[in-house]
């Protein structure tokens, strides 16, 4: 409805009553839980049981955050950073090379490669988790950070390759030809042509991959067990068991785990949005 007027020259023209109603209602649905999480995390443990849950805390305190930080939160945070950074770097590197092959070589192999990649996107992680567990145990990697990173990379490759392929297709072939005439090898083409050209797509897909790994739960749940290898999402779940009846601390942990993502969102909102819809958004 409004779509008609929204981009017309008259900015006041867009009357979309059901959309507007849904829009403001949905705002309440989104904001209320977020508000609840924040105010509860600032509430003293005793007041949680007595104060109105939606009121502002009468004696706001950061104690809950203190209890979370004392509980080895820094280690889980570091683990998450390591796994996410490692997975994203490797995923981007190998996917960029594969995408280059798919786009540049016209062999049947390249076509089949792309088809395999497309099929890979539809594989649910749950379907493969039991053999992945078997494999990780057999490789002696159980309960290491590598155990989380390797399958995370494998499952990120298909969508990453697809997005990069779609992007690389639009690069004019003449660019490659002229570089080849200058005597550039495959690696130089990759380094000094493909890499700089692909930067916007790489940033978007890196953000997407990072969010997936950062928030990933199933691989850490099944492939690790000790505190040394615990990552953030899993730590939230175990906090719940450790902090029985300390809801402010649990929610403080939730807030702490979101802060890095929120910071990324504030700095690079555009990239995050395009990263999330990349590959699906067309």
């Amino acid at each position, binding site marked *: 409805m409004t779509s008609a007027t929204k981009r017309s020259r008259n900015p006041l023209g867009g009357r979309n009553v059901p959309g507007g109603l849904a829009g403001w209602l949905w705002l309440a649905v989104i904001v209320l839980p977020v508000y609840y999480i924040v105010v509860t995390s600032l509430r003293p443990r005793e007041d949680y049981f007595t104060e109105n849950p939606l009121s502002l805390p009468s004696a706001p305190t950061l104690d809950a955050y203190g209890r979370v930080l004392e509980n080895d939160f820094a280690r889980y945070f570091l683990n998450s950073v390591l796994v996410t950074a490692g997975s994203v770097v490797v995923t981007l590197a190998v996917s960029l090379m*594969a995408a280059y092959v798919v786009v540049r070589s016209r062999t049947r192999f390249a076509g089949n490669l792309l088809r395999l990649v497309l099929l*890979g996107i539809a594989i649910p992680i*749950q379907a493969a988790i039991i053999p992945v567990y078997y494999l990780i145990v057999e490789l002696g990697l159980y309960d290491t950070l590598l155990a989380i990173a390797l399958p995370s990379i494998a499952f990120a*490759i298909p969508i990453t390759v697809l997005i990069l392929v*779609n992007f690389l297709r639009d690069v004019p072939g003449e660019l490659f030809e002229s570089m080849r005439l200058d005597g550039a090898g495959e690696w130089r083409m990759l380094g000094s042509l493909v890499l700089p050209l692909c930067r916007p797509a790489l940033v978007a897909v890196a953000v997407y991959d990072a969010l997936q790994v950062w928030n990933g739960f199933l691989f850490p749940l099944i492939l690790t067990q000790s505190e040394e290898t615990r990552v953030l999402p899993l730590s939230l779940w175990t906090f719940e068991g450790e902090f029985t009846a300390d809801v402010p601390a649990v929610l403080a942990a939730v807030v702490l785990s979101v802060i890095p993502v929120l910071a990324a969102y504030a700095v690079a909102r555009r990239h995050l949005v395009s990263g999330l*819809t990349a590959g699906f958004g067309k």
Partner: protein
Amino acid sequence: MAAPALILFGLFAGLPLLGVVALSFTSWDGLGTPSWTGLDNWRAAVTDPVTRDAVWLTVKLTLFCFLFQAPVSLLLGVFMAGRQRYRALLSVLYFLPLLFSSAGVALSFQALVDPNFGAGTALGVPALAQDWLGDPDLALYCVVFVIGWSFIPFHSLLYQAGVRQIPQSLYEAARIDGAGTWVQFRRITLPQLKYTMVTSSTLLIVGSLTYFDLIFVLTGGGPADATRVLPLDMYLTGFRSHDMGKASVIAIVLAAVGLTAALGLNRLSGASRMESQTEGA
């Protein structure tokens, strides 16, 4: 140059998909060595009432998720596509749920809907202070709502992008012909969003069939198996009851249903677009 990607993908995603088929014919407790048992697991899984219930629950969950998320996402997406400043601001806030991990969302809602100390008690309305997650009749709806809370933002982003790609000239022509906003929505916006709808629906359905993290932390499949959908049934069977063989059967069903839904919807939409792009490369 494609070798590293192929090896990593093959070893940790491709090979396991074949492996799960092999494991479904074995008996394995997750620790020892798998031993061949033929079709035993398949027979056990097909006749297991818990698994049958899980299949039915999964269908129900998928249906409810679709009925909730698809219309709201469409409505919000069209709304968000507007260029008004306040809509841009609202869109920034709508995005918030996408930043949370499923575990974080689940824990927050657990506290939020707590019958004794949750938000339901704040307003003094007894109907809101029910034991949402503890009542087998209510838990599934609660799960559907929380899933919607986390995923509607993503789908509305897809619709927003879709609406913004509709050529403005279509609307101008319609207005010259005297079409009102409702007619424009019916005759232009909806048909033009066909591909977006297919993409969003596919992701929605495949997603609903495979939600695990959120339900696992929110309810653990309970109360009394009231939210034990297939992915949870697989996890509990394999990693709690140590029956990896039977869990593998459930995993195969999951993979098959997911792949079929994805392929079927792709065909429906004529989304061979992907192929034709390949030809043109």
